[in-house]
């Protein structure tokens, strides 16, 4: 149980070599070993979405995965997405629309929203609500979050249309 295993992975664009005990989750590894505390744990059973990170560009629950399973993976957290400005527009609309209160669900929401918007197009509100069904927020009542994602989708769509023209 205490024997450590060597792993190497890319976190937010940086190569990381570490020795971890097999039972350490990716969420705990990111928070405690790499000190990326933007990834939160709210239920530790994959129900609340606070721990969502990108693994090879897809949203994954970091609480449901062991750190050893991320060996060789490319991991992006909210900090990395922020640094490379991949979600700057989402963060702006979330801020302007007040689509967060306590902020504890927000990194997971942003990772979900990144995934929703990666599909392209402008999803219907119902589709956004459906896609957020794995993200628990106790503060906002969700409407502002749906508004912010919808607005960002429209902005990206317009931007893409302008660039095409």
């Amino acid at each position, binding site marked *: 149980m205490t024997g450590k295993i060597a792993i190497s992975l890319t976190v937010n664009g940086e190569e990381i070599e570490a020795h971890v005990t097999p039972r350490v989750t990716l969420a705990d590894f990111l928070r405690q070993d790499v000190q990326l505390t933007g990834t939160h744990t709210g239920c530790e059973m994959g129900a609340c979405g606070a721990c969502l990170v990108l693994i090879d560009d897809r949203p994954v629950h970091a609480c449901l995965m062991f750190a050893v399973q991320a060996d060789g993976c490319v991991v992006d957290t909210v900090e990395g997405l922020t640094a490379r400005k991949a979600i700057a527009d989402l963060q702006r609309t979330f801020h302007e629309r007040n689509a967060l209160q306590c902020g504890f669900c927000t990194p997971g929401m942003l990772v979900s929203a990144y995934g929703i918007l990666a599909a392209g197009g402008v999803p219907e509100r119902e589709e956004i609500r459906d896609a957020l069904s794995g993200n628990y927020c106790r503060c906002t*009542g969700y409407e502002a979050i749906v508004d912010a994602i919808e607005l960002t989708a429209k902005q990206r769509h317009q931007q893409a249309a302008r660039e095409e023209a």
Partner: protein
Amino acid sequence: MNAFAGSLDRPNSYIGRSVSRPNAKRLLEGKGRYVTDLVLPRMLHAAFVRSPYAHGRIVSIDTAEAAALPGVRAIFTGKDMAAICKPWVGTLDHFRNMKSPPQLPLSLDKVMWSGQPIVLIVADSRAIAEDAAELVGVEIEDLPVLADPVEAMSAEPMSEDMGDNTCFSLALDNGGVDEAFAKAQHLLEESFVFGRHTAVTLEPRAIVADYDASENRLTAHHATQTPYQFQDVYSRHFDIPEANVRVIAPDIGGSFGMKLHVYHEEMAVVGASILLGRPVKYVADRMESFVSDIHARDHRVTARLAVGEDGRISGMEVDDVTAIGPFSSYPRTSAVEGNQVIRLMGAPYDFSAYRANLSVVFQNKVQTSQYRAVGHPIACAVTECMVDAAARKLGLDPFEIRARNLIPDDSYPRKSPTGYQFEKLSHEACLSRLKSIMNYDALRREQAELRKKGVLRGIGIALFVEITNPSPAFYGIGGARISAQDGAIVKLTPSGEVHCSISVTEQGQGTETIIGQIVADQLGVNRDRVRVMTGDTDTTPHGGATWACRGAGIGGETALQASRKLKANVLSIAALILQAQAGELDIRDDWIIDVATGQQRLSLAEVARIAFFRSDTLPAGTQAQLSVVHHYAPQGYPFAFTNGAQGSLVEVDPETGFVKILKHWVVEDCGRIINPLLVDEQIRGGVVQGLGAAFFEECLYNREGQLTNGSLADYLVPMAYEMPDIEISHVETLTGDTELGAKGVGEAGTAAASAAAMNAVNDALAGHGAVLTQIPMTPARILKALGSI
């Protein structure tokens, strides 16, 4: 009073303006600093061994194997804590005859609920502490479990010294009830059940306690709404001078009332840090949260309503039995909710014959206490369901029966049927606004059309009254050391910027933002030049902090008055420098201006530079006071009541019992709105918590007192897909008790959402012989009401 302009067309007019939250950017980048994230040098981690039984006697505890595990640094039991911690008792003096057993961090001999902490393990990591907890052997002789409040009322006392299992009882009688019922043409009676639910903040409870024996100093990094209350608690119960106790509440991942109560785990962790002289961290995991965070509600209410042929209510009688935990919570007790339930009944309506009985009963479940909208959802649902029942009986429209009964907007000030003093409410305005924003008549037509096709749509409305801005009448007069006042320090920095530290606290609702708006507005500076800080007992004045919707009304008024004081001081120095009269000067856009001409005379930065660095150039005897401390305690009415109306549109599937919530409307009157964006989001979040209670959330216990759905996979919370869009409108009736005129808004959404939803479901089921009087309205309960199962 309301003596300030408040118009939005002048520079720096921020009161009433939708602006985003400066402190939200940090959270959006994953740079929040929650207690959960905190790591201190030489910090240890705590885990607890908990009782698997709801009631039992501890026979023996064997910690030898756990202590031998590498990385375990200490193991504490009840005796260790009893030696350094004074017991606490959760009673208030103004609740006469209230009783509750004394409590300690870890149980000494008896366990009273399943999940009660017995042993504390402190280790190098949480994982090791949890491993060790599994190695502790605790032998418990189980005792009969009281898991039903009605049985508990007549059962042997679970705490021998208490005499019986009633924590508190209260009877109200405004007179005339028997006459009203004797004369009434229609009598309605209904029984209601309100399930237990809990706050489920996304960040669980968390504390890092850091005791330094060399200074006899305790620093607690504590995820709480009320740092000053905990400074007092830690000081008194661990016998550390108050000035040596510092409580820091950094970013908090949600609270809603849950994180302002004293918990056994936090007290034990403080005790452990004192005993070890090292920082000790505890973060509840989700399973622990469900069995140790306060639960709320758990009321059984029987209500009777006397109504005339004209639909006028003439009397109401209510009996409420509420089941708390094995003791009353500390320091706010577990009796406040029941008290507010029976005092808020019938609050919007114009009748006086009212009688009520309240019984607050102990049982072997985790403690209950104040959670968002304390008592309001129950009083509102009972009242509004009874009014709808009367409307159905008399064939009146729900809007019509309310219009006939509500307290007219021009009849204030006056008292509620239960004796609350109302300064000024706006039921008529809110009800008519609700009707128009719902497009009610069109909804009814659509409902009738769909009904022909077998689609069961329901429309429900509810009026509500909310308690905000509490005076010392809430806790202070009951002997609790919980402040009703707040304090602020507002200072001009040497560069002419502004710093405000204030005792109201932030949990994401936007406290720091609105305080910044008020300070900037009142001083005449740009908002981005005001820095607000909260949540640290060492750097902010003592105050009540944030609860009972007091942040805007009391904290905001504190900031307003403090800012005006600073402004007067700044202008007096500026007048000396400019050889002008202070009355001829004002501050606008960070400049001292001439009032008559609007001409810029001197920058604030220059005033500050001279005052701080060139005081030699000021007239002899001048002492510039560019930092002010100001406290404000509410006076006048004991509470600032707010009011509003909510509407709900649902569709019930009679085959499955599933309810689709289609839309929700809120008209709310919280007095002066400081930031419409934040106010609307408080209401939306509150509504969704109310809808969660209405349809999903319930802590389910079996006969043995075991919580059977204590995880986020089993306990249902509202998620995005199930929730509707929520339309909001406002009426603004200012309170005259303050210059700001603001009342509170944080609990309004929760207060009436479940009542409106219940009325909507019952409206959908009308004609099917089914009436739901229990929440949550689960599919099974709906099918049962329909007679399908």
